[in-house]
Every structure is written in structure tokens, then in C-alpha cells.
């Protein structure tokens, strides 16, 4: 059985524009189904407005879908009792894109990471600070960073703190919603390596939401492409993304920027591929 199963999710946002006008309904997800196996990473790709983040929220239990089910560890996320819900929250963590707005600017790194621990584990003061120090070290920071405030960290460092917080309760799965998109390339690569390393070490599963094929390719085991609220195609073999004939997938692949100046313009990879296969 898969760790997470998303079954036929349909969701829309409604906006009643004014009192006498008809309610305008904007469909965002239409019968989306996905599955994530334990210990694997699924890359969820799509251009902006495709519904990636909404799906992420639905999976996290933050946005109740109008139709469909989210099954996490065999239980329906939206139909569980308070106790299993609490357990679910513990096993399913999230890291968002904007590291600065994901933390309270008035708390030190120690307090930020301590929050989930205080809520779920009854640790003594000494144990807790040891746990936090080890978490910081796992994400490549040092325990001396504990007393620092968010503004004293760079974006990449703060994202590590967000990851440390997500790891604090040893979750089964982490939803990474554009978690590396705002970081520069060198930092991006080191964070991706860190995530990869943590995944093998703890058998974590990821849902990696992004619009960047490169980043998704680097970390994912399987990839799913979303387009206008639907899953355009799922690839168990991620290399198959580049040869797909599905128009939404092709669009994304074609828009990839070249790796080397020699390939610019004519460098739309699928174009080149086409020539090559001929």
C-alpha cells in the first residue's frame, strides 16, 4: 500500500463577486489522483496556476476538497478522529518557498525548532536542547546558531532551519512546496543534496512541488506533470519526461533554459531530440 494516496480530488474556489451577481466558480483541481510510495520522492511539476500548491494544501489537510479522498497511512485525512489527526500532523510536515515568512521573526532558531517538540514530545530542557543541537547539525548548521534570530540568517540558512523544524518529529513525509526556488544555484544544489541525504537516511518520502524541471529531476524518483488542474502525465521513469509527446509536458521541457550558451535559442531540447532521433 502506498504511503499517500490521492483519489479523484476535485476542488474549486468560488468568489461571489458582488451581492446581485452570480457566484463565479473557478475550478482548480479536477479528478486528480496520485500515489506516493514510502521512501520515494514524487516531483510535481507545472506552470504557475496549474493547481500544484492547492493540491499540496489539500494533501496537508489544510484545504478540504469538494470531492475525493486523501489517504495517508491508510486513513482518510478528512475523516479521521482528533487523535489520529494529531498523529497525521506529526508524520506529514511541510517546507514552503518563502523561508522568512515561515518563521516568527521574534523567535530564535532554538525556539523555532522547539515548537513541534514542545507540542508533541515531553522532553526535559536538557534533552530538548540536545535534540535541537543535533537537528541543526543534521542540516549543516552548528549548535552555536541556536540563539540567532531569523534576520541574522541568509535565505539558504533559514531554509535549513525550516527543514530542521520539519524533521524534528521524525515524520514519514515532507511536502516541499517550491522549497528551493528562491535560493541561488549553489545553495539550491547543497539543499537538494541535503534533502537527498536525509531521504536515504530516514527513509523519508517527499512531494516536491516546483516549476523547475532541473531541480525536480535531480531529486525525484517519479515525476507528475500538472496542467490546468489536471494531471497531464505521470512518469515512473523520470527520463521519459524529455521524450513525452504530451503537449503540456512538451511545453515545460521546451521552455527549459539551455545549460550552455552553445545551445541557446535552437536549444529547445525536444527540438534537438527530434532532429537527433530522425
Amino acid at each position, binding site marked *: 500500500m502506498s504511503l499517500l494516496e490521492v483519489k479523484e480530488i476535485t476542488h474549486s474556489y468560488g468568489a461571489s463577486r458582488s451581492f446581485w451577481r452570480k457566484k463565479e466558480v473557478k475550478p482548480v483541481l479536477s479528478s486528480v489522483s496520485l500515489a506516493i510510495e514510502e521512501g520515494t520522492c514524487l516531483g510535481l511539476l507545472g*506552470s*504557475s*496556476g496549474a493547481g500544484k500548491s492547492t493540491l499540496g494544501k489539500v494533501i496537508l489537510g489544510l484545504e478540504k476538497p469538494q470531492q475525493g479522498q486523501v489517504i495517508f497511512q491508510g486513513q482518510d485525512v478528512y475523516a479521521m478522529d482528533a487523535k489520529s489527526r494529531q498523529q497525521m500532523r506529526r508524520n506529514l510536515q511541510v517546507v514552503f518557498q518563502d523561508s522568512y515568512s515561515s518563521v516568527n521573526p521574534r523567535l530564535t532558531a532554538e525556539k523555532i525548532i522547539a515548537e513541534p517538540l514542545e507540542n508533541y514530545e515531553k522532553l526535559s530542557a536538557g534533552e530538548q536542547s540536545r535534540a535541537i543541537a543535533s537537528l541543526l547539525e543534521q542540516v549543516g548548521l552548528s549548535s552555536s546558531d541556536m540563539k540567532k534570530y531569523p534576520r541574522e540568517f*541568509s*535565505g*539558504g540558512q533559514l531554509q535549513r532551519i525550516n527543514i530542521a523544524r520539519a524533521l524534528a518529529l521524525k515524520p514519514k513525509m515532507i511536502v516541499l512546496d517550491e522549497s528551493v526556488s*528562491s*535560493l*541561488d*544555484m*549553489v*545553495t*539550491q*544544489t547543497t539543499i*537538494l543534496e541535503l534533502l537527498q541525504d536525509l531521504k536515504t537516511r530516514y527513509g523519508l518520502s517527499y512531494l516536491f512541488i516546483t*516549476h*523547475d*524541471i*532541473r*531541480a525536480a*529531476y*535531480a531529486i525525484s524518483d517519479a515525476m507528475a506533470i500538472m496542467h490546468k488542474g489536471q494531471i497531464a502525465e505521470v512518469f515512473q521513469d523520470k*527520463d521519459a519526461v*524529455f521524450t513525452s509527446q504530451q503537449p503540456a509536458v512538451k*511545453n*515545460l521541457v521546451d*521552455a*527549459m*533554459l*539551455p*545549460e*550552455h*550558451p*552553445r*545551445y*541557446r*535559442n*535552437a*536549444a529547445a*531540447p525536444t527540438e*534537438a*531530440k527530434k*532532429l*537527433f532521433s530522425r
Partner: protein
Amino acid sequence: MHTQPNVLQVDNLNIAAKSSRGALPLVRNVNLELTPGKVLGLIGESGSGKTVTSMALMQLLDQRAMQVQGNIQLHGQELNGMPTKAMRAIRGKEIGFIMQNPMNAFTPVYTIGNQFVETIRTHTGLGKKQAVELAIASLESMNLEEPAKLMKKYPFQLSGGMLQRVMIAISMSLRPAVVIADEPTTALDVTNQLQVLKELDRLRTECGTAILLISHDLGVISQLADEVAVMRRGEIVEQAEVCDLFDRPQHEYTKKLLQARPVMPFTDSLNRLVI
């Protein structure tokens, strides 16, 4: 090459932040040359001084908090230390600026048309009607659909990619000699990124604009830049022609940057194809 005079020449630019403990150097000995129709890429990790350099070129740094030394010459005219009023006439007219986040670059309470026309009329003697016509023409050239309708919209009604194209249209309408594009595609999604870069490419071929392209994304640099300067800790550590830089990086830091790219599976087949 030498027949083309430099549009913008930066010599020995030093920037330091004034603090209670004395001046804290941010940028040291930066020399840059921009030639018409050419794109100079400026890369480096966050915090390396790319943005502060571009702000200094525009004279947007607060004189009370920052020390800017060195020469910044636009068509031989010294910009560093120029009076505020004279500088204001140059910004936008002579030096266009495209910012990273198009969502924050517009005033939310005025329509696109309103802001577009205001910019045009500040810098030219055009009447309102002519300004509107110019605005619509520039929006059209940016491949934006129904420009007349677009003029009546507010910034929040447009997507990031569209706003970024509007911003380029505004800079383009005044035919500036230099455009500074600071991470123009970072806030956009992949499909819009390529489009915006193509529009910038058109701007330099059609108007002969010199572009300073600041980015940490090597994909953006490979797509557009002719020459690349690598910045690290406030200094330019390497500068070379773009293919040279990618093929034969000299500095350790450049090598590290180039290695940071995730490698794609089809690179091999492409290599055999293109060469």
C-alpha cells in the same frame, strides 16, 4: 569591436556601507564596460554585491548610508555624485531598470495605462494622446494581447509574467541606451522565463540597447549573455566571453558555480548534435 564606443563605463567602483565601526566595504574595484547591442552578464551567489552594484549605477544608494567611489560614465558623462534632479532625468530615459519582482514594482492603486503614460510624459514632451498611442504600440510589440484593454487593468489583475513584460515595454518605449535587468526572470515560472528573455534579446537587437543582466541562474546567462563577469564577495574574479567561461573557467569559484548545475540526461546527445 573597437569602433563601438562604450555606452556605460565603470572604473574602479568601490562601495562601502557606513557604520559605527567605520566603512564596511561591499564592492571593491569593479570595472565594467557596456557596449551597444551587447549583453553583459553578472553572476554570483546571493550577497556577492550584484544588486548593490546595479543600484550604484543608477545612483539609487542612500548617500548618507553608503559611500560610492569611482567613475560611472554614461556617454562620457559622469553619473557618480550627479545632482538628484539631473539624475532623475537620466533614470528611465537613458538607463532603464527591470526589477526582480514585478508585483512590487508597480503602484497597486493606479492602472497600468496610468503608470505607463506618466512615465512617458515625464521623460518626453509628448501629449497625452500620443503617449497613450506609444504605450499601446510598445505593449503590442511585447506580444501582449489586447493592449488597449490591458491599459485599463490594475497590476494585481495581471500575472507576474505579464507584468514583467509590461515593465520591459515601459523601459523599451523610451529607447534607453542602457538597461539594467536585475534578476528579471527569477520571480517567473519556466514558461514565462524564456519569453521574457526573448523579449530582452529583441530589445538589444532592434534598439541597440546595452544590457547589464544580473542573475544567479546560469541558464539565463547561457541564453542571453555575450560576456560574463563573475562576482564574489564584492569583487569581479573573472570576466570572459560566455562560451569561453563555460568551457574554460579559470577561477576556482567559477568552476564551483558551473558544477552546481544539475546535469540533465540528454546533454550528451545534444553535444553530438550541435558541435
